């Protein structure tokens, strides 16, 4: 049946900010959906609060609303746009929850905008655990025995019936939030309590433990004619007990016979039919008892998911794209398979390679957090790799994680038998890097059987690790590295770096020998059909095999290096820039070649670039891609400045290997990173910087601090995301920092900067072509300097800066760009203190804020940057219409809307080992996973929207708790008194309350958590923590104080996080919040699309042309 003709417009709901459990895979799926729908002539209306996404680029939808994804706001959009249908199955749990709310409050019916893809009944059947159990039973399959509970009493009774350990799963939370194993009653009480809280339906499920069973997933698609295909099977290497997002996973399933696989397939298909997912994709998870093959259906997601993004990349079958086509009426057999172009999509991909996905964690950012992997997802990103066998794919995936310790190694002494057994005891607890512990234990002689008993990992995988160890042993012991041995090792995924360690020779020598012997990888093609049909899409991966499939080409090519697995500090924002460069350069007549290993991204969609190489971003792997492409045709150069620190870190070595780097030269990149050299640039340009020094030891650090004065900001050199950065106020802390927190060495010195108190931090993104600069945008941070820019909220145009200050910023940035020798993008951070504009740092690369600036000003900065890198000038780009004909982001007209970017933090995901929250204070080390944008006519409204999008929004009435540090007491008076004027009730700890009362502001005293009960002054017997948990506080203002009060502040913040109460930890943000509350109270929120904003702003001056 062809396309439905009753659907002329569709509202696509996005997934909002990147959070753990819901990352840029939904940008990939949403972008695909928007593209497909527009190609089909459907008017696309999009809502997503996340500015860092590709899908929110104005050209991907007819009306793009960067607005909070709440039922109220989305209703306004529906009211205004009147879509014929709503598509919510491509925006993760956020979109699905929003859609259910819109159904429940009658909005969908009122505006006659039904859900397409999955209807509400199907969503509920799939997501409600009790209903889903019925589905499984009707399909003739088994669920784990379980009990649904709504109260703690029911929970305890349920556990008695099932026996410990039991699994606790709160209903309707994403990424398994709040799930875990309870081994005893204390753990159960804690987890179930939090779970009841986290579940929107106050519901948790207790389940029999199937810990240690084999875990599988099927990605299933159905069209409205009831045709069903299984796109991909995924096997988890980590057995049941670890969330699939945190597991190492493999595609296709490797340890099932056909009978068992077909049983999973039959059950999966029966379930998608019984649930009634009309069209689209869903993910079904199974556990299999390795002893007898008993199959248990764990859960299903009636929507596309992280796994479906992985499956799409793993097979070449674009699930989201096809789901969008199904949603508007096509059947699977009517949609061609993109890759073969001749065969239809109504088939099941066959893989002639192995895909391995490895998660990337960020526990180093949350030192207090328990790093045990459980059924709650904790990873922040992932890398995928493709090889012609498991060993090759596994080793490539591990090196794609970009951590030295993430790869198998044979350094140091071989573990003794006793040590090996001890390593097995360690490996019994799943953690980040357990696979390495397993490899080391087996290196030390732990047998496959012993390792299987300790970890539950299937013997087949362990056997492969043993094989890798055996080959390593042979490489290490062999008198010479013969071509056969080298080939054998490369065929099993060994990197030149690993071989260099095993042979005790430099990596470059290994590479030289290898090339001299002609041992090079070939590039195979992901073709969905195991070579049964010719592939038309050049989606390649390397393998040490015989036949190379890279086709010759004639056009000049540009290789773009992506940003690898998402991590805190390097996420979707960088993918955004890479994808834009690819689009812009394809338009400009180049072939673009993307290299990346992150399956969640748009950049690794085979549609994005002329050619895609799914490869690790290491020097070796990039050099091999370059070599293969150089054989294929002319190369204009390699772009390293858009993918963040990952490609930037390769720049120098690539250049030394003779690879042409376009844009800012590697030398100029080093210039900006090197303190001394950068200091000279500043001196020449007569630009002030905070006093600073470089220290190679603790003693040197003390001397520097003495010279420049406390407080100081200390950090290791060459970092992104403020890793290891701290503000230090005294000698003792400084010494501890240098000695413990970092490893200062001649290669890695510690940078010590004077920390500017009470300064306004300003961020700018500029383009520079060698002579002219284009100021992309000026962002004023809401938090003062000292909070990492990635975690800080900011406003564009700057809410409080005048023209003179902006001109000063412009001139300073221009001098820096010139001094460094930037060709392309540069980000500069300034601090404005006592009318002096200090340069904090300059980074000659795409920054995290590039997409935000692009959305806020309506100018595609990354596109322009890529063109400049290949020789275009700003003047030329202005003429072509890539940049506005005149003016720039520093000369926005007074009526320009204000955009506020707010960071989204993952604190509620992490618990310490004893189950309490990790602290949620902001600091110089970046810890946010994502961001949202609020855009509106005034700062207050925009800030209010940003808060609504980030965590549910500010209160407009109620009780506000205030407890601020002494230095903030003066600054809090005005905003607190405004709140009182607005009718809020204020409660405060005694010190803060005293100050308020002396200034004529009524405030009730409330007991601190650490204060004893019975305080005469206290207005309530409960402590503030209890009041917050009891839901009686609408907002918490708590700015951090010195060490003494830290424990109390921590407890208050933890309570606020647990109860999901707005928590404000800086006075600047407090002031902004009060402005926002005023705006919220004054009037209804209104919604405006980016296209409408652009028309009003007319920066491109289309109106005049």
């Amino acid at each position, binding site marked *: 049946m062809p396309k439905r003709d009753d659907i002329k417009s569709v509202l696509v709901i996005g997934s909002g900010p990147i959070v753990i459990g819901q990352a840029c895979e939904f940008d990939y799926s949403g972008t695909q959906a928007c593209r497909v729908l527009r190609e089909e002539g459907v008017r696309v209306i999009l809502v997503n609060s996340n500015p860092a996404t590709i899908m929110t680029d104005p050209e991907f939808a007819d009306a793009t609303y960067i607005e909070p994804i709440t039922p109220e706001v989305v209703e306004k959009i529906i009211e205004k746009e009147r879509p014929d249908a709503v598509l919510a199955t491509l925006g993760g749990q956020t979109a699905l929850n929003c859609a259910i709310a819109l159904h429940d409050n009658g909005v969908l019916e009122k505006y006659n905008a039904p859900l397409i893809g999955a209807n509400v009944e199907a969503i509920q059947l799939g997501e409600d655990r009790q209903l889903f159990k019925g589905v499984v039973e009707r399909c003739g399959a088994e669920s784990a025995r379980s009990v649904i509970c709504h109260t703690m009493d029911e929970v305890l009774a349920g556990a008695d019936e099932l026996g410990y350990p039991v699994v606790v799963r709160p209903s309707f939370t994403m990424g398994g939030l709040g799930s875990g194993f309870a081994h005893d009653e204390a753990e159960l009480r804690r987890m179930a309590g939090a779970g009841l809280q986290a579940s929107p339906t106050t519901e948790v499920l207790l389940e029999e433990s199937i810990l240690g069973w084999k875990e599988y997933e099927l990605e299933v698609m159905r069209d409205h*004619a*009831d*045709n069903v*295909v*299984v796109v991909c099977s995924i096997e988890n290497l980590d057995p049941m007990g670890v969330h699939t997002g945190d597991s190492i996973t493999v595609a*296709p*399933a*490797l*340890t*099932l*016979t*056909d*009978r068992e*696989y*077909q049983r999973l*397939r*039959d059950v999966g298909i029966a379930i998608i039919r019984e649930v009634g997912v009309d069209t689209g994709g869903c993910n079904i998870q199974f556990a299999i008892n*390795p*002893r*007898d*093959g008993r199959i248990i259906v764990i859960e299903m997601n009636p929507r596309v998911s992280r796994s479906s993004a992985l499956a799409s990349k793993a097979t070449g079958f674009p699930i989201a794209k096809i789901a969008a086509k199904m949603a508007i009426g096509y*059947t*699977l*057999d009517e949609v061609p398979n993109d890759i073969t172009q*001749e*065969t*239809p999509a*109504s*088939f*099941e*991909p*066959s*893989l*002639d*390679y*192995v895909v391995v996905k490895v998660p990337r964690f960020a526990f180093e950012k949350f030192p207090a957090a328990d790093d045990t992997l459980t059924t709650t997802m904790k990873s922040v990103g992932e890398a995928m790799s493709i090889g*012609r*066998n*498991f060993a090759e794919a596994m080793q490539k995936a591990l090196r794609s994680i970009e951590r030295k310790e993430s790869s198998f190694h044979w350094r140091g002494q071989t573990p003794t038998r006793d040590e090996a057994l001890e390593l097995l005891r360690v490996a019994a607890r799943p953690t980040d890097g357990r696979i390495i512990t397993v490899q080391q234990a087996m290196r030390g002689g732990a047998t496959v059987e012993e390792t299987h008993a300790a970890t539950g990992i*299937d*013997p*087949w995988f362990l*056997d492969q690790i043993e*094989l890798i160890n*055996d*080959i390593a042993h*042979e490489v290490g012991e062999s008198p010479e590295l013969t071509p*056969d*041995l080298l080939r*054998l090792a490369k065929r099993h995924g060994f990197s030149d770096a690993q071989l260099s360690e095993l042979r005790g020779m430099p990596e470059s020598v290994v590479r030289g020998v290898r090339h001299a012997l002609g041992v090079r990888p070939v590039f*195979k093609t992901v073709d969905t*059909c*195991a*070579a*049964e*049909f*010719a592939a038309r899409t050049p989606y390649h991966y390397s393998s040490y*095999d*015989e*036949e190379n499939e890279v086709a010759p080409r004639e056009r000049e090519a540009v290789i773009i290096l992506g940003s690898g697995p998402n991590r805190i500090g390097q996420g979707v924002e960088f993918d955004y820039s890479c994808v834009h460069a690819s689009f812009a350069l394809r338009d400009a007549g180049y072939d673009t070649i993307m290299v990346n290993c992150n399956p969640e991204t748009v950049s690794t969609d085979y549609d994005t670039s002329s050619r895609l190489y799914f490869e690790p971003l290491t020097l070796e792997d990039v050099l091999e891609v370059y070599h293969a492409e150089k054989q294929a045709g002319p190369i204009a150069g390699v772009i390293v400045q858009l993918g963040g620190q990952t490609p930037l870190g390769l720049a120098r070595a690539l250049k030394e290997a003779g690879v042409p780097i376009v844009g800012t030269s590697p030398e100029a990149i080093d210039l900006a990173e090197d303190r001394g050299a950068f200091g000279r640039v500043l001196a020449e340009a007569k630009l002030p910087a905070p006093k600073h020094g470089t220290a190679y030891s603790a003693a040197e650090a003390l001397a520097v601090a003495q010279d420049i004065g406390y407080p100081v900001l200390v950090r290791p050199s060459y970092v992104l995301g403020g890793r290891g950065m701290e503000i230090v106020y005294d000698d003792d802390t400084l010494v501890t920092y240098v000695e413990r927190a970092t490893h200062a060495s001649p290669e890695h010195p510690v940078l010590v900067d004077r920390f500017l108190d009470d300064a306004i931090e300003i961020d700018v993104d500029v383009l520079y072509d060698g002579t002219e600069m284009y100021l992309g945008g000026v962002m004023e941070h809401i938090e003062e300097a000292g909070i990492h820019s990635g975690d800080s909220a900011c406003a564009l145009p700057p809410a409080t800066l005048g023209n003179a200050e902006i001109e000063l910023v412009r001139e300073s940035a221009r001098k820096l760009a010139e001094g460094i020798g930037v060709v392309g993008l540069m980000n500069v951070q300034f601090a404005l203190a006592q009318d002096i504009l200090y340069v904090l740092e300059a980074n000659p690369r795409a920054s995290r804020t590039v997409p935000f600036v692009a959305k806020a000003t309506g100018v595609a900065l990354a596109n322009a940057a890529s063109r400049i890198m290949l020789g275009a000038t700003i003047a030329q780009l202005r003429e072509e219409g890539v940049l506005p004909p005149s003016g720039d982001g520093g000369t926005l007209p007074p009526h320009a809307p204000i955009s506020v970017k707010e960071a989204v933090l993952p604190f509620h995901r992490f618990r310490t080992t004893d189950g309490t929250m990790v602290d949620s204070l902001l600091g110089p080390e970046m810890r946010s996973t994502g961001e949202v944008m609020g855009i509106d006519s005034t700062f207050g409204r925009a800030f209010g929207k940003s808060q609504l999008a980030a965590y549910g929004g500010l209160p407009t009435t109620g009780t506000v708790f205030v407890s601020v540090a002494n230095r903030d007491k003066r600054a809090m008076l005005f905003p607190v008194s405004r709140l009182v004027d607005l009718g809020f009730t204020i409660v405060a700890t005694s010190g803060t309350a005293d100050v308020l009362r002396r200034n004529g502001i009524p405030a009730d005293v409330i007991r601190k958590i650490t204060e004893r009960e019975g305080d005469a002054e206290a207005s309530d017997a409960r402590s503030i923590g209890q009041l917050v948990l009891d839901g009686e506080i609408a907002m918490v203002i708590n700015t951090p104080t010195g060490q003494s009060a830290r424990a109390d502040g921590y407890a208050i913040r933890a309570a606020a996080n647990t109860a999901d109460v707005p928590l404000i930890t800086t006075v600047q943000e407090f002031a902004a919040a009060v402005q926002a509350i005023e705006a919220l109270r004054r009037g209804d929120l209104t919604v405006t699309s980016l296209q409408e904003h652009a028309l009003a702003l007319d920066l491109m001056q289309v109106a005049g042309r």
Partner: protein
Amino acid sequence: MNTPLATRAPAVLVLEDGRTFTGRAYGHRGETVGEAVFCTAMTGYQETLTDPSYHRQVVVMTSPHVGNTGWNDEDDESSRIWVSGYVVRDPAIRPSNWRSQRTLEDELDSQGVVGICDIDTRALTRHLRERGAMRVGIFSGEAARMPSAHLVERVTSAPLMKGAALAQEVSTDETYVVPAVGEKRFTVAAVDLGIKAMTPQLMSEHGIEVHVVPADASFSDITSIEGLDGVFFSNGPGDPATADHEVGVLREVLAAGIPFFGICFGNQLLGRALGFGTYKLKYGHRGINQPVMDRTTGKVEVTAHNHGFAVDAPLDKDTDTEFGTARVSHVCLNDDVVEGLELRSDAGELTAFSVQYHPEAAAGPHDAAYLFDRFVTLLENNQKVGA
């Protein structure tokens, strides 16, 4: 015998056009020749290896890891391994599955199946895709040391698949009966042209008592079965153009109005009995992911295929035959190859049907299992008419 790659003896694979792949010995050491075909199934190697339709073929597995789940005594589709040679990239060293009883390689060795591993199976597959299925030899151990011209000669002197009559070679010698499960409702003669065990099993689960008869059974042998309700022709190897005896029997079945169901080779024979031609596909369909549309319902099923020949029948129109109106009921959506035929009486009643693919799966998806129900309905309707 679970040897890692590095320590295996050398082996060489030689195609009739001279292309050579050097790898290592796998399974039995020695030499073998056959028709090179590739199979894209990612599961079910045990079923594939024991499928008689692969008789005289050297099967190239596109899935790189083979042998992971070992070998058990439950999943065989016939009494032995039929492939004449086996090509894999990365053989499993250790099998892992709760049903596994021994390794795949031990089984290959004990059944004398010569194989090769550690070659670029994708390159070989692409070669076969572009040049078509062709003869191939695998030489390991001593045999691998022969000069290459000699090896090519060995390969080119092997018989061609086109024109090969192989049904007799794989068929049962004696009739045997697979009793109905539960109440017996029907009696069917299944002509064994290389039948897979799952076919009579599924029929028996539908209340059919299956009399599996040899390929050389005559029409009177078949009709002498007491209470016969229908006739079934199985899958099997070889060129359908050589099966004159079987086609003759089938024409008698059709003329007698006995309900008929055929699978694979049985579909090709129905085609020939109805007067259509058959032809050899360039490289065949072998896998368990093939999209087939049932033109009677418009639904798409994902199906298991294993065929190198196909029926040449018009897709766009019905064909009048002496037995009734024939039409193409199923078609492969990848390449429009005929995947099923049906024959209707002048009254429009279904009298015979067949499919080119494998509704019995094993290995493969169960999407087409409804065809056994369709056969039961056909038998039922005929019983009613007869009653």
